[in-house]
C-alpha cells in the first residue's frame, strides 16, 4: 500500500501518519475502522479531519488482508547510521537540473543544506545520496532550470 501516494492525493502533502494507521487497523484488526475515524475527527475537527478520514479509509481499503507470516524468514534490514551519510530515503520529490538552462550562478550550490550540489564545469550537479528533496534549489533557481517532481519509488 503506497501511503505516500494516498497522502498526496487526499491531503495534498506527503504526511503519511493517518494512512498508515488505516493500514494498521486493517492488518492487525486491533482497532475498528469506525473507532479510528472517530478518533481522527476528534483530533482535527473540520476540513482537516475530513481529509484525514478519507486517507484512513483509502488506506484501509487498499491494504492487504492479514497474512500468516509465521513461516517467513526474517528480512535483513541494513541499519543506516548517520555516518553513512545517505539521506536519499528522505525524498518524496526529486530535483533535476537541466544543464542547458543552468547559468552557473551558484545559488543552489550555496543554499543546499546538505552540500549535495557541487559545481562541475560551471554547471550545478546534484549528488542524490545526499539530497533530502527539500526543494530549496528548485525554489531559488533564477533560471528555472530545476524541476521538482514526485519521485518514483
Amino acid at each position: 500500500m503506497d501511503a505516500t501516494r494516498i497522502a498526496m492525493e487526499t491531503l495534498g502533502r506527503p504526511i503519511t501518519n493517518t494512512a498508515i494507521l488505516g493500514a494498521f487497523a486493517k492488518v492487525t484488526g486491533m482497532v475498528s475502522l469506525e473507532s479510528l475515524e472517530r478518533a481522527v475527527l476528534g483530533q482535527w475537527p473540520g476540513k482537516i479531519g475530513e481529509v484525514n478520514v478519507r486517507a484512513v479509509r483509502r488506506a484501509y481499503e487498499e491494504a492487504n488482508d492479514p497474512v500468516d507470516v509465521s513461516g517467513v524468514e526474517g528480512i535483513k534490514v541494513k541499519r543506516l547510521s548517520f555516518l553513512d551519510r545517505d539521506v536519499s530515503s528522505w525524498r518524496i520529490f526529486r530535483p533535476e537540473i537541466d544543464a542547458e538552462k543552468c547559468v552557473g550562478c551558484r545559488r543552489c550550490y550555496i543554499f543546499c543544506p546538505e552540500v549535495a550540489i557541487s559545481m562541475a564545469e560551471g554547471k550545478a550537479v546534484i549528488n542524490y545520496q545526499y539530497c533530502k528533496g527539500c526543494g530549496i534549489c528548485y525554489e531559488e533557481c533564477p533560471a528555472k532550470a530545476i524541476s521538482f517532481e514526485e519521485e518514483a519509488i
Partner: protein
Amino acid sequence: MSKPFPLTRLGDEEFIDPANQACQGCAGSIVARIVSKALGPNIVRQEVACCGPAFGNIRAPSIYAEIFEGAGAMMTGLSRGLKRRGREDITVVGIIGDGGTVDIGFQGLSAAAERNEDFIWIVYDNEAYMNTGGQRSSATTKYAYTTTTPVGEISRGKPERKKNVPLLVAAHNVPYVATASVSFPEDLIGKLRYAQGLKGFRFIHISAPCPTGWGFNPKDTIKVGREMVLSGLAPLRGRRRQDPEAHLQAEGAEARQGGPEDAGQVPPRHRPRGRGDPGGCHGVLGAPHIKGRRPPLLTPITNLFRSNT
C-alpha cells in the same frame, strides 16, 4: 566595513560533511555550511545543546557539552587556553541557537562581551527553542505561534516583543556586531570574513527561518528569510566600534586568512585614518558615517539597531 563576497570567488573545497540529521530545508544547516566556507579550516568550535549538534557536521574540531547556558563561558576558556598554548592564529567560533544566546545563555553572553573575550559568537536565530519542539524564546516574534504560546480561544501567540539582541550586544561596545540572513549569503560571508580579521568579541546574528517550527514548506526557507529582511523584520546591519588606538588590527591579517578562495586573498585591513580609526556604522538604512570626534555611544547604536518587531 564588510563588503559582500561574490559567490563566484568561493573555492570548491568543503569543510563540512554532507547530509546531516537536521530537518529538510534547515536554515541552520545552510548557516553551518556558509560559516565553514567563509572561515576556513583553521577554527575550533563550541557546541551546546541546541539544533547545532544535529547539523553540526563541520569538520573542524568542536567541544560539545550539554551546558546549554555555558556557551559564553566555554568559549572564554577555549580562546584563553588556545592563546596560552601559543595558537592565537586559530579562530574560536560558536554557532549557538537563540535560546543559548538570549535566554539561558544571556548572562554568559553579556559577561563575555563585557570582558571582550576573543571569539566570534554566531547566533542562528530560528526564534524559538526548536531542538526541544519549538517552545517560545525571548527571540520569538510578537504574536508568533510556539508550543508554549499557542493560538487558542483566549490567547493568540506570544504577547511580548522580540528581544533586540544586536542592540543589547552593541551597547557593550564590542568590536563588531552585525545582523545577517541566511538568504543573503554574499553579505553573510563578507561579514564573517570581516569579523575573522578582527580581534576581541565579535557577534553575528543570523536570521534563520525554520520550516518545521514555523510551519512552511521546506522549499521556502530562503524565500521566507528574504521576506524577513525586506519587510524590515530582520534588517541587515553592521557596526564596528570606533577605536582610536586601532587595537582591533589583526596582528598579521595573513594569519587570520578567511575563506579558501583565490590564493593570497586576505580580508581587508583596517587602517587608522588621521586621528585614529573612527569606526563606522553601516546598514540597509545607511546610518551616517561619523568622522572626527568620538561620537556618543548609545544614540547611533539605538538608531542603527532599532527594532521593528
